[in-house]
């Protein structure tokens, strides 16, 4: 493999890994803030115990999100210096603002929340976790605005490099306006699933019902709101994607020839890239609806688009790798919907102040914890890989963005280092999440904050 391929692998590995922690951070900071608010409002100690219990899980995850995030910022310069030179005038600003406006808020106020129990007035302390939750969402906006420039560059002119013309246009790119809610709802879904799965484990053993029944219900609510929001925003995003990156939509469907109306294939058996389907389960007209908003809209096929791009950009292959696009798109949606289904079943089982449920239902609920991670990972793999061969759509190809001064051996070294380090940390992290997920929530006495700053250790 050459430096380009290795750099792409490294970006894929480190980004997907980083984004295992991001949705939990965004989703759980909000849910912990809600639990904390419930305690401050009602004074019920069960809510306080839940706050502390899930706060610990949140922190175990947050640490990993922070440290793997620094890699992301450095990586653009290290592996993609030509890209950085080209887009820095536009792409750098959202990254700087993300740090200045959001990361400072998150990290500072999380420190205050974590170490401030009993030291800060209750409401000030509560405000800290809300500020953390707000900060996480703000950071999502900036980084998605930067990513959206790569999907659909706006507000710039090219003068050897991409130069900023309209910052407002960059921040209100129609792609970010849809991607932001899509991602944040997906994060709420992920946070909700954590609450749901962990609570299910305890409820299956009939432990601490007063803590875990409300937690389960909150988790379910977050999953359902998240799923609904993700679907609606995803539908809007699909239509925007069809306008902005028709090749991505065609690749998502493995639609080779332009069709009107176009059906949506649920799955295909045959060649991986869908060129020779043996069996295909199709829903007529659905792709037309998803892509254009009309049941008999015309959807452009890969072959037509390839020809059109060759005319516009010169000879070359403008098709992304179809199997990843086709299956990534389906698996993203499928795993997300599956999580929602589990939540609906649990909602039914916990109706009317009851907790029903047999062993296998709880087992499924516990294992549903993997679903949002799969959905988020496939979503990112889809949206980034189906943009290829472009690093900035229509402006710069991925192959042209790599650092010319960095050799394949160097990139390979860092790829190996990160893979081993991240793999080891994943084992440690999952081990701790399981340990603390199965732990008994702190007792009423331990949970109650007291001004014992000297003896209480947060670590």
């Amino acid at each position, binding site marked *: 493999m050459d430096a380009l391929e290795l750099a792409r692998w490294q970006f894929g590995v480190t980004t997907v890994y980083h984004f295992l922690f991001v949705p939990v951070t965004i989703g759980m900071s909000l849910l912990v803030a809600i639990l904390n608010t419930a305690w401050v409002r009602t004074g019920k100690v069960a809510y306080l115990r839940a706050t502390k219990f899930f706060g610990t899980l949140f922190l175990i995850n947050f640490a990993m999100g922070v440290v793997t995030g620094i*890699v992301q910022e450095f990586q653009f310069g290290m592996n993609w210096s030509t890209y950085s030179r080209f887009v820095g005038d536009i792409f750098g600003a959202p990254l700087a603002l993300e740090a200045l406006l959001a990361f400072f808020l998150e990290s500072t106020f999380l420190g205050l929340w974590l170490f401030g129990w009993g030291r800060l007035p209750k409401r000030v302390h509560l405000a800290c976790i809300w500020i953390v939750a707000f900060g996480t969402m703000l950071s999502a906006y900036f980084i998605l605005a930067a990513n959206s420039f790569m999907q659909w560059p706006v507000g710039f002119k090219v003068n050897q490099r991409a130069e900023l013309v309209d910052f407002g246009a960059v921040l209100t790119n129609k792609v970010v306006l849809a991607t932001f809610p899509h991602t944040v709802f997906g994060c709420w879904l992920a946070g909700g699933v954590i609450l749901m799965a962990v609570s299910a484990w305890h409820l299956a053993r009939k432990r601490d019902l007063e803590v875990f029944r409300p937690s389960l219900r909150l988790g379910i609510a977050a999953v359902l709101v998240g799923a609904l929001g993700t679907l609606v925003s995803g539908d809007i995003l699909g239509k925007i994607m069809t306008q902005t990156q028709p090749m991505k939509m065609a690749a998502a469907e493995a639609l080779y020839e332009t069709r009107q109306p176009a059906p949506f294939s649920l799955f295909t058996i045959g060649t991986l890239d869908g060129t020779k389907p043996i069996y295909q389960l199709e829903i007529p007209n659905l792709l037309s609806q998803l892509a254009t908003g009309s049941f008999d809209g015309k959807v452009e096929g890969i072959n037509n688009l390839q020809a059109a791009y060759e005319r516009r950009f010169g000879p070359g292959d403008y098709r992304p790798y179809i199997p990843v696009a086709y299956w990534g798109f389906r698996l993203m949606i499928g795993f997300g919907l599956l999580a929602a289904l589990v939540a609906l079943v649990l909602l039914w089982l916990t109706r009317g102040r009851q907790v029903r449920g047999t062993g296998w239902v709880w087992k499924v609920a516990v294992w549903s914890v993997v679903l949002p991670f799969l959905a988020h990972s496939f979503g990112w793999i889809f949206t980034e890989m189906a943009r290829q061969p472009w690093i900035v759509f229509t402006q710069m190809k991925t192959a042209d963005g790599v650092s010319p001064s960095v050799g394949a051996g160097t990139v390979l070294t860092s790829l190996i280092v990160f893979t081993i380090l991240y793999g080891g940390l994943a084992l440690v992290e999952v081990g701790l999440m399981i340990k603390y997920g199965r732990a008994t929530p702190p007792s009423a006495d331990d949970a109650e904050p007291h001004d014992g700053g000297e003896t209480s250790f947060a670590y």
Partner: protein
Amino acid sequence: MELTEVWFVAITVLWVGYFVLEGFDFGVGMMLPVVARNETERRVMIDTIGPVWDGNEVWLITAGGATFAAFPEWYASLFSGFYLPLLLILVALIVRGVGFEYRGKRDSVAWRLRWDAGIVAGSFVPALLWGIAFANIVRGVRLDADHEYVGTFWDLLNPYALLGGLTTLTLFATHGAVFLALKTRGEISRRAASVALKTGVAAAVLMVGFLAWTQIYGGVVGTVILAVFAVLAFASALGAIARGRQGWAFLLSAVAIGVTVISLFVVLHPNVLPSTINPAYSLTVENAAATPKTLGIMTGIAAFFLPLVVLYQSWTYWVFRHRVGAG
């Protein structure tokens, strides 16, 4: 003042903030095996930086992001050129950050010892490498006409840079020990103060040598005055710690680190990354900068939010101003 100059100053400020703040939490990490005698003392030490280390690290992320936004060419050449040192710094910061959060999460001596080793190494490595990196920035590196780094990893380990690395290493170690003396009580505080004096003498000698050597890369009267001021501040910090004036000692060592960083940036200016192949290939505040449009927008936002950050971070330090002790 030109916007490019404003951003050169802004990035100086961000690095000053980073080294003054994370400098002491690197120091606390390095001091873990030196100052603490048992597990309780190690927890006390880590709790002195517990509420703030993550916020301190954001100064680095902001400095990186601001460099990307304001001087894309600088960011691109620097990060691709200093690839392996940055990789080591990233690994160190990852291990150390996770170590703080995870060391207490299992009740096992072996588990804690492993994370503590990670915290010590993860504090030591960046404290050394940041000095090496900044010395190379001031000295210049092998940049070609396209602003690409064409030197090797070993070129970065030249004597001047190594001296710079040892200087930041000992300065941060001392800064951390002074912070510990200020934030703890009793035996730990006394031990930290006595360690600070020892590392402080080494740091002072290295600092004098490094700052004197720095002057040949573009020193003027102003930078000599800054260097002397930094050394005097640091010497006073040591004097203060010897007399048990820990608050003053910490303030003075913070000033010493801050002024040292400022003096490096003044020597560097108007370059941002000089080329040792041909001065015409050097990256400067002019040829590395983003457009005035981007710089203007960033200036407006930073002018409001950077002071706000300083304000709420100061409040954090106020909330956690008490000394940490065991039982």
